[in-house]
């Protein structure tokens, strides 16, 4: 089979019957790439009670949905889902496979790529089609997937290619790609696969004995205003002050990796390459010095205010407003004057 005419497939996650945002974001990106390559966009959904799930996928431009249903396939466990993908990919030979860089995608992707001996690049921040010439052999490749990702704690950005092995696999974090409906009336095909042909009883080796999944109450990805704190906030109590400002402004509280690692606030609030990528109208950065890996996750905010003791904090270079001073003095003033001036 001619490799470059093969399709692009997205592994779609769902919970409570709803396809995960990250999967829809990848379908949006996948649609673009598939069109550029002149191939079909496919989606695979593995689980239970999948009736009608394709209706959520087609508007994103999906041409073919593979459904694999078995009640043992939900909730997700590693080996059975890996078995389905491995067997399916051997059959349909996709040239590209995209997955969310979620607890599921980052568990499943490596297992599948190891078995198929295909390359996998984690946490890509950009995916582009391009050509490649091997510097040693001089062999030329056309239309490879450039898998662009930060490395070394975000200090560098690497472009990874996977010249010879297929599928070219990549994971992407939630919020990195934009979710956009391709065509609300787009219709594709549905292919129901017989689960028994793809997964064996012995694949169900790990048993889930208890599961508490809560919808996170924290939703910084879609917040239009974010009040974020860094290590410079200094304590949990300091974050309480940020929460106060956030509640007055109708904002969410975000944080840097250093603040989360120091235990000042929850991991779900982490903004940056290893957290969430955000694009709010307003980003108020308090005590954030501006490590590259943080800036990469918030630089597209419309307006950035930096509040920092250090007038030379790196984040100030990308800020629209810089207030040099202690956030403990400035935040109460913001609260006070907002209350005074808003209706």
């Amino acid at each position, binding site marked *: 089979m001619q490799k470059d005419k093969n399709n692009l497939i997205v592994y779609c996650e769902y919970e409570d019957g709803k396809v995960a945002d990250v999967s829809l974001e990848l379908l949006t990106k996948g649609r673009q790439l598939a069109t550029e390559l002149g191939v079909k966009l496919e989606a695979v959904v593995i689980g239970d009670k999948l009736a009608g799930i394709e209706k959520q996928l087609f508007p994103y431009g999906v041409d073919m949905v593979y459904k694999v249903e078995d009640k043992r396939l939900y909730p997700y466990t590693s080996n059975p889902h890996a078995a389905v993908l491995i067997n399916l990919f051997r059959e349909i030979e996709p040239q590209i496979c995209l997955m969310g860089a979620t607890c599921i995608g980052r568990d499943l992707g490596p297992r599948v790529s190891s078995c198929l001996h295909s390359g996998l690049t984690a946490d890509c921040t950009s995916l582009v089609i391009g050509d490649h010439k091997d510097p040693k052999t001089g062999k030329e490749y056309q239309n490879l997937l450039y898998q662009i990702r930060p490395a070394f704690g975000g200090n560098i950005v690497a472009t990874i290619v996977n010249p010879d092995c297929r599928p070219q696999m990549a994971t992407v974090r939630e919020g990195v790609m934009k979710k956009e409906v391709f065509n609300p009336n787009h219709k594709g095909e549905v292919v129901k696969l017989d689960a028994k042909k793809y997964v064996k009883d012995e694949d169900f080796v790990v048993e889930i004995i208890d599961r508490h999944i809560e919808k996170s109450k924290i939703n910084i990805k879609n917040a239009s205003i974010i009040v974020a704190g860094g290590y410079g906030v200094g304590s949990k109590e300091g974050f309480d002050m940020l929460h106060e400002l956030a509640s007055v402004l109708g904002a969410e509280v975000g944080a840097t990796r250093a603040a989360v690692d120091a235990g000042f606030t929850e991991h779900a609030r982490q903004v940056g390459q290893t957290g969430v990528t955000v694009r709010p109208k307003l980003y108020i950065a308090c005590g954030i010095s501006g490590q590259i890996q943080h800036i990469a996750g918030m630089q597209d905010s419309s307006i950035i205010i930096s509040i920092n003791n250090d007038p030379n904090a790196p984040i100030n270079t990308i*800020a*629209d407003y810089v207030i040099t001073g202690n956030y403990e003095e400035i935040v109460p003033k913001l609260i006070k004057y*907002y209350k005074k001036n808003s209706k």
Partner: protein
Amino acid sequence: MSLNIIVLAKQVPDTRNVGKDAMKEDGTINRAALPAIFNPEDLNALEQALRLKDENPGSTITMLTMGLPRAAEVVREGIFRGADNGIVLTDRLLGGADTLATSYSLAQAVKKIGNYDIVLCGRQAIDGDTAQVGPQIAEKLGIPQVTYAEEILDIKDGKVIVKRRLESGVETVKAPLPCVVTVNGSAAECRPRNAKRVMQYKYAVSPSEKAKLDDKQKAIVEKRPNLNIQEWGAAFVEADPQQIGMAGSPTKVKAIENVVFTAKQSLSLENNDEQIEQLIKELIANHTIG
């Protein structure tokens, strides 16, 4: 029941302050030029191993690392904290490996160790943050994986019960042994070095390290051959040359760039009431807030 536990640990460059000079021309990392530390989540994994050993007398913990010869440092660190012995998988042929070639090489070493009940490692290493090596080793060994472990709750009747920390909650799973468990940073912190063990094992060295010692130190090491850290190469673990190093890596680094952000024209404000009120008024007026 006594357990044979393998802990995988990686010596990683401290990624907090790294420039482009840390990269070689071929796009791989020049590890020799960087300060090296014990990968943080591998320490969380070691703690889980030490707890298993505490609860299951007679268990042994073998540290396994792959890297430059100086990675013997993480093996020794593990031994100072309570591991029993360790192996450094080191060979020029293994250099330039992506996660898949790394996983294959480590899986070969695990097979060479042979008798194991559980393999523990950190969820991911801070130099790459890929979280791929754990699951890929599990696949290469043909055994199950349990990722994102926060706590090993119990191990009995050939099964391990693990609490996993996921994005949106927790899950408790039961997996058959042997299996690979990757441990999250939210798990218990690793206990510190044990002073007695530091005294006992300070001369535990690998052959490469021994070669650099003076005669007096060598004599001390030779008196205690049981303390030595082993060094294994690709041939010793019977690795297929086509599956290791650059040759065995499906992914290639095409380009490396330093990260540069476009600076904006910033407006500097004084920390005074007047200017802060003015800012708030502006933001309200242009409907950013309010």
